[in-house]
């Protein structure tokens, strides 16, 4: 059990709200690359965003702690309050703006097309589109990807710029379209590569904050404004060779509002299956892990309660009955809310605040589902055990078996076979009930569906795919348990 809990801890960061104004957590992917935030040769974390964060600390008067987070999960991580703000070359995209608040932009990027030196088939992005034959590399979930999708360009999305430029050198792709800072950093000093055409399609990098955290949003907005006014931002960008004419002219007037004069490409970035399916699959994985782990808890606990009710001393029997009636009667949603939002303060009030910090969305969902379904399982297993004829106990007793031995070797194996069909439907019910955990911010399948459907407004399309994913999981569950039933049930009877 301890191992399981530490696993949960390791995999899911704590969902704490902005409790300590003296310390902020900054969500960022240091594997995303230079010049944003990366490790130098001495394994020191450097980058122009690191410098901006240092300046933010001074301006806001807090310390800021770096929190490593996958680039593509930064927005969900922020929503889940694994950190207070995300800053990692996050482009202001329409779908993102729907879920988070973007502060004042701190840099204006443009897209740069990079090709192999000596490329003659096309000379810029327009002529590349005209050929309709070229394959272009870019990064996952970026504005450049949205542009390529919009223009119907055959493209491949990489998770790091290094991979994209390596494949360009290896002629696996014909060009790379990527934000200018990355193009300069990764291709600028490579003699085999060269820029093609001028930078185009400007966009804004901004710090993302949870929409409900207005205090912090205002503080960061003010700090960025101050940094623009006092020249500290220009100084940092110049040091990193990022300050250019475009930023000099437009950065001081750029806001995070949706109608920015230069943005056209991003507004109609389409939500394709390849864009949302990975997120749905991620949610499917969480749903599956939650189902199996909480059902394991329900089975073990249920058996304990069933035996306590059948064979325990009177007070224990009463407790077992009370447990079953309580957890069968309390709505799961209420229980999850209590465990996730209420329990930490209860624990804090009895001096166990440390324990409350362990309650992650996954942990609370696991416990809530496990406790609830243990009550159902206890009843199923109790009636199964009671349905074994008294004669079986007597036959075993007459052979010199003790009650404990008889229970383990004779009664329980038969009871399991009887309990299997109702337990199976219990498992499927629990599987579907995992969707309730979306109410406590757990990013399981249903929650992912909600986020994606709201971002893309494709409620029907994504809804159907989500339903198919649920069915793809529940049908095998049913088939597998029926197969198990047949195998265990063979030769059953007197």
């Amino acid at each position, binding site marked *: 059990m301890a191992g399981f809990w530490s696993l949960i801890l390791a995999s899911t960061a704590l969902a704490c709200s902005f409790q300590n104004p003296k310390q902020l957590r900054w969500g960022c992917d240091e594997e995303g690359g230079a010049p944003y935030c990366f490790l130098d040769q001495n394994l020191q974390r450097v980058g122009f965003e690191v410098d901006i964060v240092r300046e933010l600390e001074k301006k806001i008067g807090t310390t800021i702690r770096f929190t490593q987070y996958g680039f593509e999960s930064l927005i969900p991580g922020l929503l889940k309050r694994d950190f207070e703000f995300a800053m990692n070359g996050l482009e202001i995209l329409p779908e993102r703006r729907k879920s988070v608040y973007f502060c004042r932009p701190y840099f204006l990027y443009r897209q740069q097309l990079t090709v192999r030196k000596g490329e003659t088939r096309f000379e810029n992005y327009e002529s590349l589109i005209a050929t309709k034959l070229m394959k272009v590399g870019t990064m996952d979930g970026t504005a450049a990807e949205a542009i390529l999708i919009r223009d119907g360009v055959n493209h491949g999305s990489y998770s790091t710029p290094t991979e994209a430029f390596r494949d360009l050198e290896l002629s696996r792709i014909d060009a790379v379209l990527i934000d200018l800072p990355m193009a300069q950093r990764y291709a600028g000093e490579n003699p085999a590569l060269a820029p093609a055409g001028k930078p185009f399609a400007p966009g804004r990098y901004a710090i993302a904050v949870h929409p409900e955290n207005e205090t912090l949003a205002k503080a960061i907005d003010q700090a960025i404004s101050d940094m623009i006014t006092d020249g500290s931002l220009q100084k940092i960008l110049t040091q990193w060779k990022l300050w250019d004419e475009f930023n000099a002219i437009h950065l001081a007037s750029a806001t995070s509002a949706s109608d920015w004069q230069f943005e056209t490409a991003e507004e109609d970035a389409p939500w394709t299956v390849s864009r949302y399916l990975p997120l749905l699959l991620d949610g499917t994985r969480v749903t599956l892990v939650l189902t199996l782990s909480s059902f394991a808890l329900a089975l073990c606990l249920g058996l304990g309660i069933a035996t306590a009710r059948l064979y325990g001393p009177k007070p224990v029997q009463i407790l077992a009955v009370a447990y079953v009636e309580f957890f069968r009667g309390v709505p799961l949603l209420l229980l999850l809310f209590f465990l996730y939002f209420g329990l930490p303060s209860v624990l804090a009030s009895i001096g166990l605040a440390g324990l409350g910090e362990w309650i992650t969305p996954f942990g609370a969902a696991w416990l809530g589902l496990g406790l609830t379904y243990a009550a159902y399982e206890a009843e199923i297993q109790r009636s199964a055990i009671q349905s074994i*004829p008294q*004669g*079986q106990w*007597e*036959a*075993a*007793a*007459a*052979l*010199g*078996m003790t009650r404990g*031995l008889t229970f383990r*070797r*004779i009664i329980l*194996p*038969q009871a399991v*076979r009887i309990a299997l069909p109702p337990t199976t439907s219990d498992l499927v019910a629990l599987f579907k009930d995992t969707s309730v955990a979306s109410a406590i911010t757990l990013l399981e399948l249903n929650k992912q569906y909600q986020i994606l459907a709201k971002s893309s407004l494709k409620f029907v399309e994504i809804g159907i795919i989500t339903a198919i994913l649920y069915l793809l999981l529940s049908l095998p569950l049913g088939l597998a348990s029926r197969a198990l039933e047949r195998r265990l049930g*063979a*030769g*059953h*009877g*007197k």
Partner: protein
Amino acid sequence: MANKSAESPGLAIHITSLKKRHGDREILRGVDLRIHPGQTVALIGPSGGGKTTLLRCLNGLEVFDHGSVRVGDCTLNALSGQSIEIARIRRSLGMIFQDFQLFPHLTVLENVAAAPIWVLGENAKEARDRSIHLLDRVKLSEFANRKPMQLSGGQKQRVAIARALALKPLGLLCDEITSALDPETKHEVLAVLEDLKRDGLTVIMVTHEIGFAKRAADRVVLLAEGNIAEEGTAAEVIDSPKTERACKFLARVLG
């Protein structure tokens, strides 16, 4: 005939003024019975006369209110949970039930080998070999890997006998072991039981098979309304009953 030789391996069973009540109903009203090692005793009598209860008192499946039971060198007293004594008795006194009570989730072989492995702690291989041998004796070794539900009633009861013998008991308690069987399969079971007599086991059987009792039992005990109404050799009790109650019962069962 009534007394087997002293070196018989069977158990001596002494029942002394045994009383048992169930609520208001007196089921046993002071039963005294001495069974010598190696004897085969048939308990007959009308339903509700206390035959099965008497049998179940001998291996501790029922507690009794008064009197004592001595099986070999173990003694059970009234109303006491003497688990150590009971455990010893159960190892030396096998029991076979009317409704078989084989373990349905185990194979025939596993049913027989279960107690030797789990209770006696015998080596699994050895226990299985011995179980095959016992199944051979009840002529069911080719069914070793079947599940009980694939067997006929007579076959099931023979497995139950092999299972009881697997603990190497010195005596057997048989509770109407042919009552649930059709006439054709009854004799398979009775034949096995007769064969066991040669081993010198003490056998106490509750039975309605008057013919079999007459042929196989050394002694016949007629139990009615919680008392021993009559006892003696089969010839004495069945052919020339002395009490009115015995006459009535025998007239009814013999038609």
